């Protein structure tokens, strides 16, 4: 193997890994919602879009008021989180709650309807031209330099993506601790396991649903902001990235947090390898081909819970 090939491999692995971490974060939001409410949220990509634009707007506004950049980012992200919590609550109360107990297709369609509404609102307010964030959310511009003897030129890797991976990791750890240790987290797991049993133990399922949706909205917004910072800027293409998370959750299993993370990294790596070694246009297709193969062998994904049906 010649040195250039090795460097290419390292580059692809690096970007596949950071891409995969972002996909994992997106998938995590989807899994969260599915686990406790049995809804697959086709509007997740639009939550990301909305989050990115809310973050963009608050950064833009704060920039004129506050001078210190770190403070701008901190307050801006806080505002975004608060707004997204409210939106999560609103969506759950107005759109999803009336549909509890309806067939799968109705629930899918209501989230699809919601996604169209959010896209229309965002497009109507902010227009369609892509913007870059006014303040860098991750203020790191250094690069790693890797050089191997005999290679034509050294490899430069952006440290920014590593920070993003780190942020994703911290969020995931926080979520795991939340699920394992906190009262609400345990209540959420109980609800996911058996809604009626949870109700009879005095858990308010309504509160849990509301909590889940706001949590999912916040993770989506963070993912949207990171994508805007790292790749495509604040633009109408963000929901397309959200669409890429569907193979991830199916691969990992709809109800498995571990599956979301492993699936995210796996799909991220597969995507970059396929586009780097075979054909760039394969990027969007290969995950789905992998998905079809996996589903043929393991219909509930790699880590999904097997459901045994009785008549």
């Amino acid at each position, binding site marked *: 193997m010649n040195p250039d090939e090795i460097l290419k491999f390292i580059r692809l692995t690096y970007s596949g890994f950071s891409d995969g971490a972002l996909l994992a974060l997106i998938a995590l939001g989807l899994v969260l919602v*599915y686990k406790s409410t049995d809804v*697959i949220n086709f509007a997740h990509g639009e939550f990301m879009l909305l989050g990115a634009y809310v973050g963009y707007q608050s950064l833009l506004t704060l920039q004129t008021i506050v001078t210190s950049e770190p403070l701008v980012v901190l307050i801006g992200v806080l505002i975004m989180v608060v707004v997204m919590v409210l939106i999560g609550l609103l969506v759950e109360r107005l*759109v999803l709650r*009336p*549909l509890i107990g*309806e067939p*799968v*297709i*109705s629930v*899918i*369609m*209501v989230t*699809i*309807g*919601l*996604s*169209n*509404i*959010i*896209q*229309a*609102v965002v*497009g*109507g307010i902010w*227009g369609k031209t892509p913007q870059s964030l006014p303040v860098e959310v991750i203020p790191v511009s250094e690069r790693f330099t890797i050089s191997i003897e005999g290679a034509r030129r050294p490899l430069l890797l952006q440290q920014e993506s590593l920070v993003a991976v780190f942020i994703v990791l911290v969020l995931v750890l926080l979520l795991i601790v939340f699920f394992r240790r906190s009262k609400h987290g345990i209540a959420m797991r109980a609800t996911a396991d058996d809604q009626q049993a949870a109700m009879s133990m005095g858990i308010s399922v309504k509160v849990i649903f509301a909590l889940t949706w706001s949590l999912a909205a916040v993770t989506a917004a963070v993912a949207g902001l990171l994508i805007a910072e790292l790749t495509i800027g604040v633009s109408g293409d963000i929901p397309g990235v959200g*669409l890429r998370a*569907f*193979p991830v*959750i*199916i691969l990992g299993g*709809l109800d498995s947090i571990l599956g979301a993370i492993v699936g995210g990294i796996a799909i991220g790596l597969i995507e970059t390898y396929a586009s780097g070694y075979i*054909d760039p*246009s*394969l990027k*969007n*297709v290969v995950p*789905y*081909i992998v*998905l*079809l193969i996996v*589903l*043929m062998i393991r*219909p*509930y*994904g790699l880590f999904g819970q097997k459901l045994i*049906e009785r*008549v």
Partner: protein
Amino acid sequence: MAAQSGIYHETYPSDMQIRPTTMQRVRLLLLLVVAIGLPFVAGSGLLRIVNLVLIASVGAIGLNVLTGYTGQISLGQGAFLAIGAYACGLLMVYFQVPWVLAMIAAAFITAFIGGIFGLPSLRLKGLYLAVATLAAQQIVNWVIIRWDPIDGAIDGVATDALNIPANYLLGTGWAVDNRALYTVVLLALIAVVLIGALLLIRRFLKDQLLEYAALIGLAAALIVIVLGAALVTVYRDGIDLSAFMRTNWQLNSSESAFYVLGLLVLASVVVATNNLFRTHIGRAFIAIRDQDIAAEVMGVNLFRYKVLAFAVSSFIVGLAGALVALHSTAISFERFTIQVSIEYLAMIIIGGLASISGSIYGAAFIVILPEILRQIGSQIAGADPAAIREFNRILPFAQQGAFGVVIVLTLILEPEGIVKIWRNIKDYFRLWPFSY
């Protein structure tokens, strides 16, 4: 649903009718009259929208067979439409297949590929299946964009668009320069069609197969109108018949020519699917939707019928795709994206799941909604240039938002769709003024 009382069936054929009451028959007759009369009164702009509704209706019925009746959620509708459209287009462009054969072949090809994508459905259910059909969408789109023979590089420039040749509703090979001969041939054809249709209709009416009679009547009426128009023009103006057919009955430029084709396809599909769910195959589909394991216990071969459901649905969707191809001068993958799949799902949700007429109402609603918004918007904007600019900016978002709002409101307020609202209206008047 309030049942009509006072209907007594004395024979099995009478008991098995799809439309047993007088009211239903009157409505069917009215529908036929409107359908035949429409091209005479409607302008080409309106007829264009009607044609889009016809195509969408065929596609929506296809999706409803799969999603509404068999309970298999598909997000791959756009892909199957694309397969139908490209199969039809490629057959016509590269193999010079006549359009009728190309359309039928496209439907069979789509059915075959749909059946293949239906294979995972044996092991997958609900959400997993929905996402697996997303795979069909992505893979087909990629193939269309990447596969070179499909790029329609006729003039050496590779594009995604495939140019569709001109097709004529009636053949063009009759270039005999003899007016008397034309007249005789056309008159003979009209007579044959009329007599044949009358005989068939009488036969079907005797067996109380009203739908078949109506379908034959519709087809005969349309053919006679087309031939009659040709006869009148050729006789009066003394022009070459084939020239007349070329100028007036080109499918992708004359809306009324396409209307005849679209209406006939839709009517056949409606009759076929309405009857499908009275056969053991259709009943098996419904049983699978309601409880698949129970259906298997009752002796329904799940694998066979699920794949069959995918194939039947894709066949109809393939027909719709072929219609899309025949209706346009060029097709490209942008017309078959995931947004299209979503629109079709919205049609059957808004119209009514597991309902043939619902599919048509939903298709009409989704096709007409953006048009209505455009009309209203341009009325409000008036002639002020600034207002028009703002209107042009807002319009796509307003259309998209309205689409979303309609879906959400339908699901929350009337999950059974337009069909249920229409049924409620009928029930109200059936019992009027003494409703309970």
